[in-house]
């Protein structure tokens, strides 16, 4: 239907139209080229960058936690182990309304107020995307119920987790310590040690005790699973798996039977006991009374329980054996005797008076003897046996601190023993330098050393302050004729994968260069303490082996001049502490120990019988008649090292299974 009349016009229009087509086409080609150049940029120039991003999207590293190493005593009795249980964990960032979810969950599982309190505390301490346990150790029924309702709760998971268990609770609390949730302080430490990766996914870390000291060995090495994950974070399949290396187990020198017996012998009394094998420095028993239940600390202790424990006047949280500083009282005398013999201040057979009191020249101050009538004329050995105070006052006065300190310090008194526990107290073996330093901020007169200062030091009072551990180690060194060890709780660290054991160094760190005759002399003097006429003669009755010891009484309060110490008149906590140090058998010592019973009076009365009962059990297997039914651990049969290793390997395998098996969502 052409229109001839408008032909020319149409032709012009036609040309105009064709131009517009060309322009449109040109624009479209250009824009397509722009698009292609964008593709080149994304797919060629930025390809590597986006490949990495896609890979990061796709693959997530899931840590596989190593099982924490076990802790067993010298006979393979398990002191710390792991067990698997279900926990209910919430990730706040994944849920619309945290409080509502918690309220809903409380209808399904039994959430106690304590659980809630703990949850709130952890909530403030952790970041939004971290899973926080609301309830640990779900019952089977609760776990099943949660699995059925899981779809209702985004961000809520039931996870199989390993928990630490200390079967002996209070009994081992001051030895093992405990593990607890990793806090910001721990994180800093881990960062410093470059251990952050190794702790990915780990919730707990050793806080005190052996759990802290041997954290590296117990923790092991984390494994990783490379998982392919989808956009919803669900794992699709495993690409690669690097298995974890489980933590090594600690085999202790400690004998839990001895530990339990000691605990029972203390009963409700406070104090500490350390028993050391003088032959290798292994710690056989390490008790601080009272103890506490370490499981309270694992998930973070609530403030009320913490307050109760911390403000308890009995101080259950204080490790008395490690950190308790007590004047040694007369248990100091054997060391004084060594100093006197070594410096030649007295000869073995020199006879000196031991009157009822001692006064310094030109002073009326009376240093009284525990025996008002005195002990007549005695030699050094006899002075030890009867624990003559006036004899040692005079001896100390004659020697002066400069001759006492160099000898006694070699027994490790006043310095850390180097035991494998953190926070050991160094104690105080006084010297002129020490006093000047100690009182440096006061007037010079206060820090000056007065000759009279040495007198009470001679009988283990005054500035003297040692830990029961130091006393035990000192006595062990004495019993050993000067061979000194670093006491150690752990005998060997065992890798359960191939049973490879790394022993802790058990050769003496030092040999004191004192005359063997002097050791022999002092040891005989200590042996006489348990013989008729000695202060602990009562516990020396019917000894089937030889034993040496020394009683001690540490003053808690100063008795006024002229006043008489009257235990009944003093409140219990101001009464004297009862000390006893001992070793047996005398010829070839197998056990050395230090016992202190707080506020229990004379050493012979409270501490010595405990020591005797322990050496009896240790050397002969005899259990005190009145306790025979109460000791659980004594029944435990002892196992060979191979049996222990096998049992542990089986256990580890079981735990790994339990660990891997998470309930289906």
């Amino acid at each position: 239907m052409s229109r001839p009349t408008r032909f020319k016009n149409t032709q012009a229009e036609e040309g105009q139209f064709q131009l517009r087509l060309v322009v449109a086409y040109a624009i479209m080609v250009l824009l397509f080229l722009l698009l292609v150049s964008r593709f080149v940029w994304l797919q060629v120039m930025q390809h590597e960058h986006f490949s990495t991003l896609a890979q990061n999207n796709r693959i997530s590293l899931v840590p596989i936690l190593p099982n924490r190493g076990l802790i067993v005593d010298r006979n393979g009795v398990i002191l710390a182990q792991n067990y698997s249980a279900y926990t209910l964990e919430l990730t706040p960032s994944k849920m619309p309304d945290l409080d509502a979810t918690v309220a809903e969950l409380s209808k399904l599982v039994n959430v106690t107020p304590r659980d809630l309190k703990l949850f709130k505390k952890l909530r403030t301490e952790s970041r939004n995307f971290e899973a926080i346990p609301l309830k640990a150790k779900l019952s089977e029924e609760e776990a099943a119920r949660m699995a059925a309702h899981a779809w209702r709760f985004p961000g809520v998971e039931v996870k199989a987790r390993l928990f630490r268990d200390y079967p002996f609770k209070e009994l081992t609390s001051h030895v093992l310590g405990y593990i607890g949730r990793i806090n910001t302080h721990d994180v800093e430490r881990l960062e410093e040690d470059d251990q952050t990766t190794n702790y990915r996914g780990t919730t707990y870390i050793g806080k005190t005790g052996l759990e802290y000291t041997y954290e590296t060995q117990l923790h092991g090495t984390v494994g990783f699973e490379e998982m392919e994950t989808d956009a919803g974070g669900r794992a699709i399949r495993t690409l690669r798996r690097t298995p974890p290396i489980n933590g090594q187990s600690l085999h202790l020198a400690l004998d839990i039977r001895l530990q339990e017996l000691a605990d029972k012998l203390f009963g409700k009394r406070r104090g500490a006991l350390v028993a050391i094998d003088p032959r290798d420095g292994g710690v056989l028993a390490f008790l601080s009374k009272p103890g506490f239940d370490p499981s309270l600390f694992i998930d973070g202790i609530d403030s009320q329980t913490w307050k109760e424990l911390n403000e308890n006047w009995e101080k259950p949280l204080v490790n008395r054996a490690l950190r308790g500083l007590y004047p040694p009282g007369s248990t100091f005398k054997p060391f004084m005797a060594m100093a006197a013999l070594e410096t030649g201040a007295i000869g073995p057979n020199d006879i000196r008076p031991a009157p009822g009191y001692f006064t310094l020249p030109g002073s009326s101050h009376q240093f009284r003897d525990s025996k008002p009538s005195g002990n007549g004329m005695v030699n050094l050995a006899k002075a030890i046996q009867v624990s003559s105070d006036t004899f040692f006052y005079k001896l100390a006065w004659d020697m002066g601190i400069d001759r006492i300190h160099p000898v006694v310090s070699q027994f490790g008194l006043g310095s850390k023993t180097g035991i494998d526990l953190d926070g050991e107290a160094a104690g105080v073996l006084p010297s002129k330098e020490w006093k000047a330093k100690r009182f440096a901020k006061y007037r010079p007169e206060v820090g000056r050393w007065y000759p009279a200062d040495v007198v009470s030091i001679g009988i283990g009072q005054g500035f003297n302050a040692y830990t029961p551990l130091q006393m035990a180690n000192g006595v062990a060194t004495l019993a050993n004729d000067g061979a000194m060890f670093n006491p150690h709780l752990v005998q060997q660290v065992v890798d359960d994968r191939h049973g490879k054991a790394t022993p802790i160094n058990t050769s003496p760190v030092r040999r004191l260069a004192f005359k063997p005759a002097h050791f022999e002399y002092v040891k005989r003097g200590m042996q006489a303490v348990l013989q008729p006429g000695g202060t602990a003669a009562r516990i020396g009755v019917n000894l089937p082996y030889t034993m040496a010891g020394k009683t001690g009484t540490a003053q808690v309060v100063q008795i006024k001049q002229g006043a008489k110490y009257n235990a009944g008149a003093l409140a219990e906590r101001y009464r004297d502490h009862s000390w006893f140090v001992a070793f047996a058998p005398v010829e070839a010592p197998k056990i050395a120990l230090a016992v202190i019973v707080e506020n229990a009076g004379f050493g012979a009365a409270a501490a010595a019988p405990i020591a005797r009962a322990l050496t009896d059990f240790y050397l002969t297997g005899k259990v005190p008649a009145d306790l025979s039914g109460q000791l659980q651990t004594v029944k435990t049969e002892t196992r060979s090292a191979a049996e222990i290793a096998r049992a542990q390997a089986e256990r580890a395998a079981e735990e790994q299974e339990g660990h891997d098996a998470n309930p289906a969502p």
Partner: protein
Amino acid sequence: MQTPLLKRLWQFVREPLDGWLMLFLGLVFVLSMLVLYSASNQSFDKIDNKLVYTVLGLVVMWGAARMRPQSIMNFAPPLYALGVLLLLAVHFKGVTVNGSTRWLELGITRIQPSEIMKIALPMMVAWFFQRFELSLRWWHYLVAMALIVIPGGLVLKQPDLGTATLIMAAGFFVLYFAGLSWKVLIGGAVAFAASLPVVWNLMHDYQRKRVLTLIDPMEDPLGAGYHIIQSMIAIGSGGPFGKGWLNGTQTHLDYIPERTTDFIFAVYSEEFGLIGNVILVVLYLLIVSRGLMITARAQTLYGRLMGGTITMSFFVYAFVNMGMVAGILPVVGVPLPLVSYGGTATLTLMLGLGMLMSIGNTRR
């Protein structure tokens, strides 16, 4: 006796269809089936559906191609009027989903009238110019503007910026081919640029967010920027040769949103790489070239205007979709022509292509 019958039948079917276009569409269709199979995690459900509506689309296309453009043109005024009425109905009685009112409830089904306007609007404007071909004055352009702006404004109010832009663009293409003066065109472009701040103020929050996301997707990587970032990762990680069919990790681990519909290009790109992208772009360019070739030979003004507009719109859909997935254009709900899964869009598109073929069939 049978051979001639079959031959006649073949001729009957073949006769209205454009050979070149059919070839290019066929190739794109093959690619689209491959991608859809991968994107739907190797399920045949969507493949089956797509086959069904492609066959339906082919019938519509064939039907349109058999008709003369003038006959189709006569549908323009009633179709346009119906479209505007429906848009008004949406405005007053529409169904609101996700804060925008785009649908009309018809009891049995729900329709989106703006979809009709994608075809009805350019038809109407082209009809208008054809009607007044011999007496065109400047005010005719103003009337044409009004024809564009009325439905465009209604869609914009829904609000649906993407569709409004597309239908108004279609109307604008008609104006362009009808000979709207270059001065006005350039002046309009300048005025548009100048009005951007005003437009910004009139925009809804979600629209502003889309623009901001485009400028810097990393600003909100887990929120609005997430889709763009993930599809850019898919494209980029595909590299020059792609990860291979069915091997796209972004795709199969659910990182790509809407991966069978608006973002299907990311899937394609991840698995077939730059090579695949270039092949697809070239196919689109061939379709567009063929479309313009048909347009250049169109006999009537209506034919030229509609041919050019359909071709340009086809291009715009392809460009906007790929540009959006590649992160150079804002996220608007535009499917990738012939590839994205979705019945309505395919039918509209095939109808348009059928009309293009009908224009091609009516040579001078």
